[in-house]
């Protein structure tokens, strides 16, 4: 075979390989929604819209945009739903979830849930679906729960619902006691707080060393120093943060440890501490939560140690240097199933009001006011 013939064959093979690498993947059967037989929800419709899968060498890149409509088959109002999204062979058995809190779906009604997933995974043999969606839990208006609860959805949905009730009650009382103008003033204040929240990206590594960031300095001379926590105290909190520290190095905070004390007589099953970080420019932002999942007896004390590493950066990608840390109690679940969440009075403190994230319900009401105005908000609160 002549040299020119060999070159032609090689060029044709390369072109064919390039075409094969960009080949589309058939998404039929790629997404499977598995609801239990006794599920209080049913799939009313599923639209995969502009979803696409692309084969790249031995991997498949999936860009899934699923618009799912679920129907409430139960006799109770649905207040929140969590769907478990499983993508096999991706990132050490990792999984995702899509939750819809602050719902109020009457029996027989439909509601939408969007799943927008992007994923790269090894090419499968086609026998198994690329993505499976399971029902992790449904919360009803009487705070009863249905579902496997593999993601502790019951606790999270319940906390969101209690926060929703607290905030609706707050705005309703404002409306009844002081009229629409005061409500408008209060909702504008909430809107300002939401808009003024510093925007940061956060990474976490459970164990091991955080991979070097793309914008990390060329040298690694940033000193690792232990920083003591300052605590933001809420008068009504049943848990007191006694002491705590973490190691700070550049844009990373590592291995937080805290000492906590139960001020209540009731035993605690779970509690969540919020971490706020401050950078050297003085900007403070809510970045992470530290859960404590051991039983804590009434009036008991405990130490909480964690091996995680956090990294924070501006949403623009620019690097920030951490300076100090603060902690506050975010929520508590008692052993008897009752919950504690901060009251509006606890959050009235300016700094706490800025740091503690708004409830999903407050976000929803603010968006309703922004989109449809004060009258729509008043009607919503008078339902």
């Amino acid at each position: 075979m002549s040299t020119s013939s060999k070159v032609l064959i090689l060029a044709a093979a390369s072109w064919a390989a390039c075409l094969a690498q960009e080949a589309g993947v058939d998404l039929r059967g790629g997404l499977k929604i598995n609801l239990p037989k006794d599920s209080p929800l049913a799939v009313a419709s599923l639209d995969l819209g502009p979803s696409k899968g692309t084969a790249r060498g031995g991997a498949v890149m999936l860009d899934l945009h699923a618009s799912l409509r679920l129907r409430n088959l139960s006799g109770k109002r649905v207040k929140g739903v969590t769907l478990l999204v499983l993508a096999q062979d991706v990132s050490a058995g990792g999984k995702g979830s899509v939750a819809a809190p602050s719902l109020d779906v009457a029996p027989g009604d439909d509601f939408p849930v969007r799943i927008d997933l992007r994923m790269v995974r090894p090419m499968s043999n086609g026998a198994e679906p690329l993505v499976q969606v399971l029902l992790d839990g449904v919360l009803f208006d009487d705070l009863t729960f249905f579902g496997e609860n593999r993601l502790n959805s019951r606790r999270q949905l319940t906390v969101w619902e209690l926060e929703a009730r607290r905030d609706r009650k707050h705005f309703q009382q404002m409306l009844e006691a002081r009229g629409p103008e005061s409500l408008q003033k209060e909702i504008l204040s909430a809107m300002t707080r939401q808009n003024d929240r510093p925007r940061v990206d956060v990474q976490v590594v459970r164990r091991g060393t955080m991979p070097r960031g793309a914008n990390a300095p060329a040298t690694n001379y940033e000193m690792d120093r232990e920083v003591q926590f300052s605590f933001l105290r809420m008068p009504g909190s049943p848990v007191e943060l006694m002491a705590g520290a973490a190691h700070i190095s550049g844009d990373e905070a590592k291995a937080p440890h805290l000492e906590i004390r139960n001020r209540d007589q009731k035993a605690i099953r779970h509690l969540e501490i919020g971490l706020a970080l401050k950078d050297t420019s003085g900007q403070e932002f809510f970045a992470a939560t530290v859960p404590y999942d051991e039983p804590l007896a009434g009036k008991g004390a405990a130490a909480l140690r964690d091996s995680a590493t956090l990294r924070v950066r501006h949403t623009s990608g620019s690097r920030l240097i951490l300076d100090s840390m603060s902690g506050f109690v975010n929520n508590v679940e008692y052993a008897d199933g009752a919950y504690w969440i901060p009251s509006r009075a606890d959050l009235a403190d300016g700094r706490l009001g800025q740091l503690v994230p708004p409830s999903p319900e407050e976000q929803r009401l603010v968006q309703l006011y922004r989109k449809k105005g004060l009258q729509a908000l008043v009607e919503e609160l008078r339902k």
Partner: protein
Amino acid sequence: MKHPSIEKLALYGGGELPWWTQFTMRRHVHACPQCQEEVALFRETAEAVREETAEMPAGVQWDRLAAEMRANVRVGIAASDAISSYGKPHDIGPVQGMSWRMAVLTTGVVLMLSVGYWLNAARKSEQIAATRQPDPVVAEASERGVGMSDGSKEMMLQGPKTNVRAAIVTVSTVGSAGARYVDEDTGQITVNNVYVE
């Protein structure tokens, strides 16, 4: 008859050549009247120079100067030889053969050292592979969505098309990352999370 170069004759006249070259040159000069004449001329000139140096100013380091000049002359001779031999085939002397016993012994030693090194290197690479930690799985919450990646595989839950920018992002130290979105049309809240196991 082939005569030595004029530089070599000058060095011979001053007794500056290596002893073997000096010996072979002496044999040639004794048999060659033309070269004897050249050498005699160099020696007369050298004597005249020595007489002149008596009138030179004091303080000059003549010994050092002379050594430098001799060295320069040697370098010149070496360069001249190199240039003249360029492109000509080199004379290859007889190769000293190695006895077969020495060859067998040397091969055995080299073989033993190679096997030992290979075994040790293989064990070390196994130890390094055993101690190397796998890439940690990073969970990230950003405005664009929540995702996790171990460097080769990745999964990302993005925001709805109606509002792709997350309003609130957070991570949990148990290894999860979350992003909360507000649908601009309906106000419905969507919270996406990824969990690293």
